[in-house]
Structures are given as structure tokens and as C-alpha cells.
């Protein structure tokens, strides 16, 4: 070894060391930037909510809470809301997790087509999905009543509401569990089967416990979504005077001046409840190693062979998709061909036409709205999942004592009513002239805020499954924290991040309420056109727009499926 080599070696080590020090600062720097961005995105609507809820005539007041709790019928509405939320959450978890297991972990035939079709309820605006179920299960005009004469089940009931809400949320659960199951080492289940456990016992005692983070986090999401739901309860509960909390108080927001305090009081109560649930979730997941299925051992994904049950399970899966996806789509498709809705009959089929599709294509700004929406969805989904991957690292890996606070802040937008979110952003960004208001920028902010709680759930679920030894190994080998995050953690999180990306891209495409207050003529988006058709009162035109959205996103989804599969995303 020559002196020059030694000198050169020292120089190389110094350069590596200073590079490592700079890289080591990268992750903390990104963390700080992420925290600032999340805080700004969330504090705007939260600040608005707090001010409107806790002040009256410019001074501190709890009058909003007194008014909310004193609303006529609030007791019955609270009971109905609780039953509705619990029932719909339980059903959604059952249906979504079972679907994900069958499609991701077994060798059921037709799973590629099924895995795309199960997402359709996510694509449709919930108001259209609910209308499709009215067309199917209304005791007066429903298909079931007309064809089978069966009126014992009415969609206009708490059970009916809960069922439709569950079916609308099941794709969200499916995406979350599919990311989890895709990352699961099958050898654990194989060991159980070799040990004599049945498939059901294996699922119950091995698979589900391993998926505990996903179970808890999606339960929180679904429960909160149900408590906050408005469109399904107003369509299916109001006719028989089954009020939930949101439908009981929605008129308060329509007053002048709008009584945001009442709506805010409900949200504040939800925020408190949610924080407690997250703390509970935190305690339940203390022993994080028990869910870590992505380890240094590596695994090759093998599907569970269903054997003689293969075709029966296939039939069951297609029956589920047939009832929950194909049938509502058929009803909407039929409605789109009618000048006015009438229960299906030969006479009605004789008058069917595709005129509404031609009218839709001729809608002013149709093409611009579609383009704006695609751009918005892609930008929002990408930016949000990258941001939330850092939040997930903070929450799960950083070791910060108050990391749960970060998760709670990122989850707060879930309980802020859509209208209040829109009003808050409108108020702030029209006063603080950053050049965002009046263009697509304000919509990007609105969507990122609204879907942050979902993004953080998908990202965290993915992070929880990764054995922390993998990161430690990278660090011991000399990689900086940033390098470990980018080179080790992110690739392993890919299935969960892709699942979150898909979810956010789809729901932002169909979100009716967020853009209503914020769009301008230059930033019109597709959901606004759907909303206008809905408010025009033309069910056929609204159904037409819904069908166009479904076909468009299915085509895009089919085209994107190949690169997503190759990226190790949602397994199909």
C-alpha cells in the first residue's frame, strides 16, 4: 500500500463521510418540510372549524354544542347514526377483506377481471350508487319488487342504508387489505396448514392477526366515513324519516348566515373520539414485530391452492361482483337510456336511446373538464402518497415521542365536513393571494387535504409490515437514513403506496362536493359536470355521466394494471 493510496484512501473516506453526513441531514430536512406542509394543509380547515365552533359574536362560546345537543330529535339521530355506522363498518370490513384475500392470496380463476370490477363502487359518486340501489330495491319501483314481487326488504331503512354504505366502502377496504396481503409471507400460513389447521382456522388465527394494523386502521376510516356520510342517508333515510346526525343538522349549514357552529360541534366531537381511537390503536400495535411480514428472509409469493373449492369460490366471487357491481351498473346503464326513469319493461326498452351520451359529449367544457380531472387526480395522488410515506416513517420509525400527534393531525380532515373544508379554503386563499384561487392550484390543495387521512392509512399499513431489521441492516452497512428510506423502505412499501395511489386517484375523480365552491371556468372538473346534471334533475344524464366515468376509469385501470403489477403494486 503506497502513501498515495493511503492518502487517497483517507480522502475517499472523508468524502464518503461528508457525503453521508449531508445525506443524513436529508431525511430530517424532508421530515421537517413534510410536517410543515401537512400542518399548513390541515390547520387551515381546522382553524376555521375551531373559530366557527368555539366563538359567537367574536368571543369564546360553547353555544354551538348546546344548540347541537338540543336539536329536536338528536337522541334518535344519535342512535340511528351509531347503528348505521357500526353495521356498515362491520359489513365493509367483512366483504372487503374477504374479497382481498380471495383475489390476492388464492388461485381463484378470473381474478384479474374481478380485481378491476370490485373497484367500480369506488368510481361511482355515492349518490349515483345509492340511486342504483333505489332502482333495484325500492319497494315501490325497484327491480326486485317488479320481477320477484319481493317487498320485504326495503332500501329505505337503516339496514338498507348500512348495506349500501358498506358496499360503497368495501373497495376502500379491499385496496387496503390487498396491499397488506400482497406483502405477506405465505410461509407463515403454510406452516399453520402443515401443522393441521384448516383454511378457515389459518385465516382466523394467522392471517387476520398479521393484518391487525390494516383491520384497525380501516375500521377507523370506515366508521368515521359512515358517521360523516350524507348522500346515502339523505337519499335512503330521509323518505322514512330515519335521521342521522348529518341529515338532521344539514339545514343549519344552508341558513344565512350559515350555522357552521352546529356542523363544527359534530366535527369537534368526532375529532376527540378519533384521537382516542388512534391512541387505542397505538397501544394495540405496540408489539409491532408481530405484524412485520416483510423481513430479511425474503419470500416468493405463492397463492393458496383452493383445490376442489376453486370453482365454487369463483362462483361466489362472481355472484358478489354481480350483485354489488354489475347489477347497479346495469340499472344505471338502463337509466341512462331513458328520457325519464321508469321501472324496466318491454315498453321502456322500446324507447331506449343513446341520445344522452351524445348530449353529454356536447356539454360545454366536457373535454377540458375531463383533462383537468385526470391531471388533478394524478398530481394529487402522487404528491400525497409521497408525502404520506414520510409521515408513515415519522409515525412508525422515527422514535419521536409525539409521533402519534402527527398521525392525528393528518387524520383530522376526515372529520371536517366537506362543505366546511371548501368554505375554509375559499376564505383563506381568496384573502391570502398566492395565485392559487381561481385555478387548479386551489383544487390540488383541497383534494390533498381531503384525502390525506386515507393516504396516511395506506402508507402506515405498508410501513408497519416491514421488519425494522431491514432498515437497521442498511444503516449498519453505512447507508444514511435518507438512503435507507429511499432505497430500502420505499420499494418495500410499494404495494401499499400503489394501493393508496389508486384509491386517491379514483376518489378524487368522482368527488362531487369538494370542487363545488372552488372551481372556476378555467378549472372545471368532471365531477362538477356530474353534479350539474344531478341538480338539473335529469337522472338519465347524471347516470350517463356516471357510466362514462366508469368506462373511462376501467379502461385507464386496465391499461395501468400491467405497469402496476410489474411495480409490485396491487396483486392480481
Amino acid at each position: 500500500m503506497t502513501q498515495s493510496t493511503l492518502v487517497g484512501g483517507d480522502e475517499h473516506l472523508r468524502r464518503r463521510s461528508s457525503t453521508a453526513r449531508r445525506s443524513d441531514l436529508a431525511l430530517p430536512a424532508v421530515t421537517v418540510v413534510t410536517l410543515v406542509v401537512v400542518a399548513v394543509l390541515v390547520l387551515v380547515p381546522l382553524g376555521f372549524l375551531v373559530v366557527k365552533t368555539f366563538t359567537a359574536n367574536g368571543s369564546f362560546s360553547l353555544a354551538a354544542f348546546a344548540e347541537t345537543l338540543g336539536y329536536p330529535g338528536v337522541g334518535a339521530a344519535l342512535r340511528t347514526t351509531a347503528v348505521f355506522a357500526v353495521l356498515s363498518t362491520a359489513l365493509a370490513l367483512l366483504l372487503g377483506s374477504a374479497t382481498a384475500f380471495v383475489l390476492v392470496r388464492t388461485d381463484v380463476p378470473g381474478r384479474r377481471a374481478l380485481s378491476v370490477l370490485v373497484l367500480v363502487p369506488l368510481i361511482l359518486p355515492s349518490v349515483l350508487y345509492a340511486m342504483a340501489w333505489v332502482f333495484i330495491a325500492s319497494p315501490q319501483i325497484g327491480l326486485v319488487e317488479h320481477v320477484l314481487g319481493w317487498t320485504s326488504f326495503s332500501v329505505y331503512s337503516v339496514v338498507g342504508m348500512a348495506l349500501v354504505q358498506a358496499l360503497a366502502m368495501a373497495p376502500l377496504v379491499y385496496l387496503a387489505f390487498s396491499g397488506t396481503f400482497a406483502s405477506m409471507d405465505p410461509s407463515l400460513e403454510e406452516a399453520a396448514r402443515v401443522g393441521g389447521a384448516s383454511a378457515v382456522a389459518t385465516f382466523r388465527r394467522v392471517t387476520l392477526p398479521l393484518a391487525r394494523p390494516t383491520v384497525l386502521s380501516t375500521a377507523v376510516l370506515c366508521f368515521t366515513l359512515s358517521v360523516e356520510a350524507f348522500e346515502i342517508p339523505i337519499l335512503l333515510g330521509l323518505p322514512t324519516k330515519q335521521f342521522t346526525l348529518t341529515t338532521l343538522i344539514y339545514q343549519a349549514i344552508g341558513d344565512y348566515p350559515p350555522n357552521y357552529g352546529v356542523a363544527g360541534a359534530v366535527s369537534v366531537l368526532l375529532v376527540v373520539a378519533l384521537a382516542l381511537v388512534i391512541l387505542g390503536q397505538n397501544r394495540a400495535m405496540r408489539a409491532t414485530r408481530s405484524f412485520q411480514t416483510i423481513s430479511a428472509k425474503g419470500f416468493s409469493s405463492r397463492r393458496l391452492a383452493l383445490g376442489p373449492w376453486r370453482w365454487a369460490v369463483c362462483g361466489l366471487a362472481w355472484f358478489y361482483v354481480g350483485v354489488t357491481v354489475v347489477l347497479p351498473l346495469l340499472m344505471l346503464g338502463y337509466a341512462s337510456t331513458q328520457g325519464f326513469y321508469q321501472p324496466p319493461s318491454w315498453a321502456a326498452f322500446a324507447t331506449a336511446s343513446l341520445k344522452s351520451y351524445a348530449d353529454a359529449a356536447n356539454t360545454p367544457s366536457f373535454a377540458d373538464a375531463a383533462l383537468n380531472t385526470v391531471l388533478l387526480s394524478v398530481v394529487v395522488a402522487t404528491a400525497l402518497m409521497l408525502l404520506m410515506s414520510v409521515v408513515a416513517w415519522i409515525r412508525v420509525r422515527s422514535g419521536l415521542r409525539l409521533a402519534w400527534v402527527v398521525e392525528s393531525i393528518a387524520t383530522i380532515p376526515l372529520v371536517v365536513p366537506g362543505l366546511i373544508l371548501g368554505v375554509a379554503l375559499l376564505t383563506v386563499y381568496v384573502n391570502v393571494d398566492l395565485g392559487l384561487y381561481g385555478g387548479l392550484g386551489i383544487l390540488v390543495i383541497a383534494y390533498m387535504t381531503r384525502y390525506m387521512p386515507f393516504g396516511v392509512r395506506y402508507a402506515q399499513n405498508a410501513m408497519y409490515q416491514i421488519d425494522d431489521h431491514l432498515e437497521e441492516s442498511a444503516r449498519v452497512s453505512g447507508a444514511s437514513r435518507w438512503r435507507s428510506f429511499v432505497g430500502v423502505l420505499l420499494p418495500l412499501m410499494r404495494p401499499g403506496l400503489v394501493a393508496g395511489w389508486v384509491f386517491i386517484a379514483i376518489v378524487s375523480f368522482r368527488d362531487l362536493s369538494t370542487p363545488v365552491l372552488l372551481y372556476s371556468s378555467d378549472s372545471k372538473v368532471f365531477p362538477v359536470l356530474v353534479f350539474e346534471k344531478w341538480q338539473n334533475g335529469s337522472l338519465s344524464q347524471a347516470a350517463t355521466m356516471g357510466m362514462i366515468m366508469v368506462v373511462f376509469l376501467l379502461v385507464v385501470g386496465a391499461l395501468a394494471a400491467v405497469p402496476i403489477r410489474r411495480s409490485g403494486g396491487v396483486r392480481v
Partner: protein
Amino acid sequence: METTRVGRVAVGMGMVGVLTLACGTGGGSGAADEPRPTTVAEVLAAVDGLEGPDRRTRLIELAKAEDRPFRLYSASSGDVVDAEVKAFGEATGIEVESYRASATDLTQRVLTEHQAHYADGADVLFNDYKQMSIYSGQGLLQPFPTPVAQGIDPAFVRSDWIGAWVATYVAAWNVNQVTDPPRSWQDLLTRYKGKLAIFDVDYDWFATLVQDMVREGMSEDAAANLFREAAQGAQLVDQHTLAANLLAAGQFPVVTSAFGYRIDVMKKNGAPVDWQPAVTPIVALPLGVGISATTDNPASAVLYAEWRLGDAQRTMLDAFGLSPTNPQYGGVLAQYPGQVRIVEEKTVTTDEARWKALYADVVRGSSGKVTG
């Protein structure tokens, strides 16, 4: 010599050319020098004395000289706004940027922009009676004394906004299920008790009918009880346009306060629905147009408002069944003279809370238990 002559001719021609240009320019710049009106009052002064096509032509000239986008904020439904914008563009050549939202959402946006002194907000506002009263009270509108208002029912004319069409709340029925339509409100509320669809939000319709019944000699309690008993077993609905569709589908036989224009459009498209002969009195709520106090496009705004209040009323009646506020164009005011009750302003302002509470009690029940 020849060269000199050619040169003199060339110079002469050049001077003629320069003079011609100067005169043309001078003539043109004389017109350009005329100051452009920058306020609605100046625009109205510029067209004062002009009528009909001459007035419109002058307004179009002034509007085309404005260089900022012209913005319409409207609470009319999307198809109506699209049709208005297209028709206005074809009639005048002026492009419109439109923003459309529900009545209350529109108000939220308008007030927020106003409080922030937002520079690119609405030039013209179009909303229902209640919201226009709010805009007027908040100083968002400016006086607009136009001769077009002369033909309009005085009940719809204010100093700073004018009713452009009248939304009617009508009792409507499915003709396949109802062969003997109701003739009066008492007939409807008693004969169809338990079979009705009642709107959860129409306290103004309810208040107006109760007030009319009181004028006819009934006590307010008795009138409210008539509605309360009819609401027992009724279906509650939230959206007028959706309810009209469900009525056509046969979900319920009778609905209490559908929008008349929606029923007319559906009937024209073959739906088995009707509202005529009307159950009277008919409750009506005007939707009006006003010019923003801060508009940078006063000529475009005046042009649009006068166009919309003029023969566009007939166009909108033919296309969408929107009942004009000028009876010469037809509509419900002409068809049912003396039988249309306009919602009183105090019903939707000072007395609003009382009527809302009473209506909620009537249709939802007040005991904390659901009824029906």
C-alpha cells in the same frame, strides 16, 4: 425636368397619402378619444334615449370595448346557464365566463370574495329572492334603472335587482296513479293523507300557504295541523328535481311542492306527470339578476341584464318552462292571474327562524321521535 416633375408628383402623392392617413387616424382617434363609460350610470347615460335594436347595438359596441373577461355567477341549473350563455353569445358576440352553484353555495362564494376585495369576481349575479335580498343588504349590488323593467310585474322590481323568472312550487302527480287530481290544497292534504311526498326544506312554501289560509279565515294552528296530519306517513324528500324524477317513476303518487318548470319539461319528454289544472293558490319565488357594485364591465353587465330581462324571457320559457316576470311573454302569471302568491320577504328574513321551526315540527315531528 422630367425627373423633377416625377419627383414633385411622388412627393405630392406621398403628402396626399400622409394626409389621408392622418385624417383617417384623426377621425379614428377622435372616436377613440371619446371616454369609455366606466360605471353603470355612465353606460345608462350613454344609451339614454335609445330603444330596441339601436340601444342594443350601442351597448354591444361599448361591451366589446371592455377588455376584461365578463363573469356571470348564477344559481340557475347547469343546462339553463349553458343555454343562456350560448344564446347571449349568439345574440351579442360577447363571451361569458360562468360559475354555477346552488343558491346558498353561490352566496357563500360571493360574500367571501366580496370581503376579500377579490378583483376577478362576478360582474352579474343571478340568484333567488332570498339571496338577492342578502346581496342587496350587504351592498354587493348597484342601482340599475333600466327601461326594460317597465314591462315587469312591479312585485319583482327592486332598485338594484330585478326578477327575471318565477319559480313556482306546484302540487304535481303521477297521471298513471292519480286519475282524479286534487282541486285545492285542503282537498290534497286530506284526500292524499299518507300518500304524499313532502319536501323537508320548503318552509317558505308552507308559510305562504298558511298565511293565505289565515287570510281566508282559518287560524294558523288549524292550518298547520292540516299539514301536520297530511305529513303523517308521508315520504320526506330533499331535492326537488330528484323528487320529480321519482314521481315520474311511480315512487309516490303526489308531491306537494315540485318546481313547475321541471314538471313541464318532463311532461314534454313523455313522463307521466302533470300539475295542471293547478292546485291554487300557486306559491312562487322570483329569481333575479343584479349588477355587481364592483364590476369592471359595466356595459357588458347592462347588456346582459337587459337581454335577460327582455325577449330572452320568452326564449327561456319555450326552452325550459321558466315562467317570465313580464306577463306579455306568457307563463304562470298570465295563465293564473290573481292566483299566484309570491313568498313574502319577511318570511325568508325576519320571520325565517319561526317558520323553519314550525315547518320542521310539522313534517319531522317535535317529540324527538320520528313520525310516520
